[in-house]
């Protein structure tokens, strides 16, 4: 095998979009392939876990792991890749902060299994069969990974050196991150490999953002004809720009849709949702309880809006399940 640096890709609880993002590098992927050996990439190459186990510890330069940690298998792979790689990179929103899968932290294993295997209208399960970690069939044992109660980000399972944010990370961000890693001039561990400023600061509509925003109510994108040049917050839309890291190239804004916050917060913010909640509540013009309540009714799903990609990485991490009295 050549002495090119080795890299590995792995996916945990994710949708496959991050794998697409790597392929989306298009011609640039040839530069990456010319510079490195890909030694493990289940979605594209036929290397097995045993191949990784056989490698020397620390022999992989960088392992890019996308997806949140939901099962015992994913946790095991995260630990394995941590051992084998010098640099472990959390790739994409799910590995970074929990991502969309972490919204399941508003429920627990029992509630999720009950919905998926019992109560959805399309489910036919008269015997009430539920997933088991081990079951015997004709004398053989069949096993499945265990399913945790809580979804975690990669750094809640093992130590992570760098983060590449985004759902999915954009080609520019990936190419920039790969160049940084190959250059050998590494930033401090724990760095998110994207600009450390809020999206608003590089927004093409920044000039139309009023100094003092004052909103009577919030609007959802389907309720109005969205002006293509005006600040989306000024139009009453819940744009996550003020509390979200820049670097995405303002793709959603340029598509005339509000930012949903996939790049996570900047380094100065601990809790993206908390910070955003603070910003938009102060923008409301209502001053009395009743008027404020009615304005807040314009946010039908506050947690799903403020923590769409970051519930696992938030200060509270999950909902505390309180028993419901029958």
């Amino acid at each position, binding site marked *: 095998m050549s002495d090119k640096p080795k890299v590995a890709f792995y996916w945990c609880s994710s949708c496959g979009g991050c794998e697409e993002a790597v392929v989306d590098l298009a011609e640039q992927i040839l530069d990456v392939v010319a510079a490195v050996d890909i030694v493990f990439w289940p979605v594209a190459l036929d290397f097995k876990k045993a191949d990784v186990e056989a490698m020397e510890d620390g022999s992989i330069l960088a392992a890019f792991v996308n997806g949140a940690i939901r099962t015992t298998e994913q946790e095991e792979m995260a630990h394995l890749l941590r051992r084998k790689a010098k640099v472990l990179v959390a790739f994409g929103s799910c590995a970074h902060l929990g991502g969309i899968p972490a919204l399941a932290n508003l429920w627990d294993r029992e509630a999720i299994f009950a919905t998926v295997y019992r109560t959805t209208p399309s489910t036919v399960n008269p015997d009430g069969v539920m997933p088991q*970690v081990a079951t015997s069939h004709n004398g053989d044992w069949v096993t499945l990974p265990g399913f945790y109660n809580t979804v*975690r980000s990669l750094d809640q399972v093992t130590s992570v050196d760098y983060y590449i944010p985004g759902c999915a990370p954009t080609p520019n961000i990936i190419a920039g991150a790969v160049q940084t890693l190959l250059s050998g001039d590494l930033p401090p561990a724990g760095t998110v490999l994207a600009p450390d400023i809020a999206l608003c600061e590089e927004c093409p509509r920044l000039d139309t953002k009023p100094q003092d925003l004052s909103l009577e109510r919030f609007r959802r994108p389907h309720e109005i004809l969205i002006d293509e040049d005006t600040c989306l917050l000024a139009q009453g839309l819940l744009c996550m720009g003020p509390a979200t890291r820049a670097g995405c190239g303002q793709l959603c804004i340029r598509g005339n849709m509000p930012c949903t916050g996939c790049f996570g917060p900047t380094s100065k913010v601990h*809790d993206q949702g*908390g910070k955003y909640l*603070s910003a938009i509540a*102060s923008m409301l013009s209502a001053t009395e*309880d009743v008027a*404020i309540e009615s304005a807040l009714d314009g946010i039908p799903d*506050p947690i799903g809006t403020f923590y769409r990609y970051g519930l696992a990485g938030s*200060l509270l991490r999950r909902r505390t399940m309180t028993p419901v009295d029958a």
Partner: protein
Amino acid sequence: MPEPIEVPQESGAGWEPRIVAFFCNWCTYLAADLAGTSRMKYAPNARVIRVMCSGRIDPQFVMEAFAKGADGVLIGGCHFGDCHYQSGNHKALRRFMLLKRVLVGMGIEEERIRLEWISAAEADKLRDVMNDMVARLTALGPLQLEVPAEGFTEAARITELEEVTA
């Protein structure tokens, strides 16, 4: 200053609710001062943090207090019309109402977070609010977040691992 006394964190004999109180510099903090100089007696369960204005209280402060073990958070500010910065308390109210929706959605009971307007002269209101909140929290019991703020401890993880692979 007396040494802080370690109180049991689990419910049961000897447990006392822990409250983090954010008081504005111009009204509620002065009310607490007045309560002290007037030698009023009230529940000693709050750790008071002085902020310049209730509008300075970032929702992250409240979340962090809960994540680090507070059983309740009390926010005290000036009455409407009295804000030293004119509208800080109005902002505080809006943030508080939205924050409460989020916290309730995260399984934290409504009684655990409270906003009160207490002027510099209302030491008796401060005493009553504090006593009332402690009584409610005592009835509610400790807040037991399912995930500790410092992340999953190794022991908790292994227990869960054994549970799901049993």
